[in-house]
């Protein structure tokens, strides 16, 4: 696929607020991107020229924000809307090998949707969530830079990340990766054996460390994971907030987030 053929949809809803940065990041790497309201995919109250299908696009992004005001649980209402109207399409989309990215609230949506950890390749969207993003141990909204160590070699979103540790900012109150109690080690083992753990929080020396380096108390310091096919990726930190150099205190060039967007475009070009 040529780069200018690639179309990216950033799904928005009432309460998402990072769609513009995400669209800008994708446009800056030379692909066509637009923010699409989720109802444009299924509602019949939409004008013809604004109706969309998931298969118009080659990559879907669930952006950060506070979809539906984080009522019930963060991401629960967004995922319920997606699941009721678009479940089959999303499953097909994943099976076709197209990538899906979830940033922050988007990660919460993918987890609530059952697309992550996504162990079953034949059923990429499970009936019930298999993990949870619980309230931070600090019980606060954690908003600051974090250091992440790249763990996965296969995830299509991090193939171009050459550095060992990258800096992305976090901004969330519910981001503590939690597995069913008593089965934590079993889940981590399974994730490790599939190479599904993508980023883990580390300190400035590159060692796995607790709070404040791990902002939320995540189990096994997990910051981001992908599914079994390595094409669906969710992470709590915001790569789009470290995309341009000026966002991270550099006069020119790009920040660490650039590699994430570049990697997925690279993957799509080869598809």
């Amino acid at each position: 696929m040529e780069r200018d053929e690639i179309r990216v949809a950033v799904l928005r809803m009432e309460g998402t607020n990072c769609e513009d940065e995400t669209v800008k990041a994708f446009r800056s790497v030379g692909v066509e991107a637009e923010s699409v309201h989720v109802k444009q995919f299924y509602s019949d109250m939409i004008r013809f020229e604004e109706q969309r299908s998931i298969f118009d696009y080659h990559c879907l992004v669930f952006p950060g924000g506070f979809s539906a005001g984080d009522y019930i649980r963060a991401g629960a209402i967004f995922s319920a809307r997606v699941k009721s109207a678009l479940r089959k399409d999303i499953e097909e989309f994943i099976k076709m090998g197209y990538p899906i990215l979830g940033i922050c609230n988007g990660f919460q949506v993918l987890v609530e949707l059952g697309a992550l950890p996504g162990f079953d390749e034949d059923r990429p969207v499970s009936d019930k969530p298999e993990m949870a993003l619980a309230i931070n141990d600090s019980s606060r909204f954690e908003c600051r830079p974090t250091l992440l160590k790249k763990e996965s070699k296969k995830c299509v979103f991090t193939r171009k990340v050459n550095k060992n540790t990258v800096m992305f900012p976090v901004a969330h109150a519910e981001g503590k990766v939690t597995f069913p109690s008593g089965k934590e080690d079993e889940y981590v083992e399974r994730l490790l054996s599939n190479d599904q753990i993508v980023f883990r929080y580390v300190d400035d020396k590159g060692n796995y460390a607790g709070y404040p380096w791990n902002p939320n108390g995540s189990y096994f310091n997990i910051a981001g994971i992908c599914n079994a096919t390595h094409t669906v990726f969710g992470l709590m930190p915001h790569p789009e907030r470290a995309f341009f150099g000026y966002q991270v205190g550099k006069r020119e060039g790009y920040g660490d987030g650039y590699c994430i967007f570049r990697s997925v475009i690279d993957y799509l070009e080869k598809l």
Partner: protein
Amino acid sequence: MIKNTFWSMNWIVELQVFQYRLIFKVDVQEFIMIADVYIELKEGVADPEGEATLKALRLLGFKRVKKVASVKVFRIDIEARSKEEAEKEIAEMCEKLLANPVIQKYSIVWRE
């Protein structure tokens, strides 16, 4: 002349068909019931919200407080034939949206 026009007119004979409809009236009453659905954290799951509240209460001088747990309640008005039927439906709601089974459990309390 007159005869001619008389016969050229189209006469439509309407057949009246009487339709007999049998209407069975089944008396099934649906009631509106009100349920309080409690969403709690499972045992062993950390509750930072409760702990922070406990800390703040202690600071305010309520030294006898031993534990605070955060619980979310949804009050649901539901129309159903029986409580069993409604409970089944509410359980489905909890599994699909209101609770995340990994960290939360739910219970239903009926309001009179």
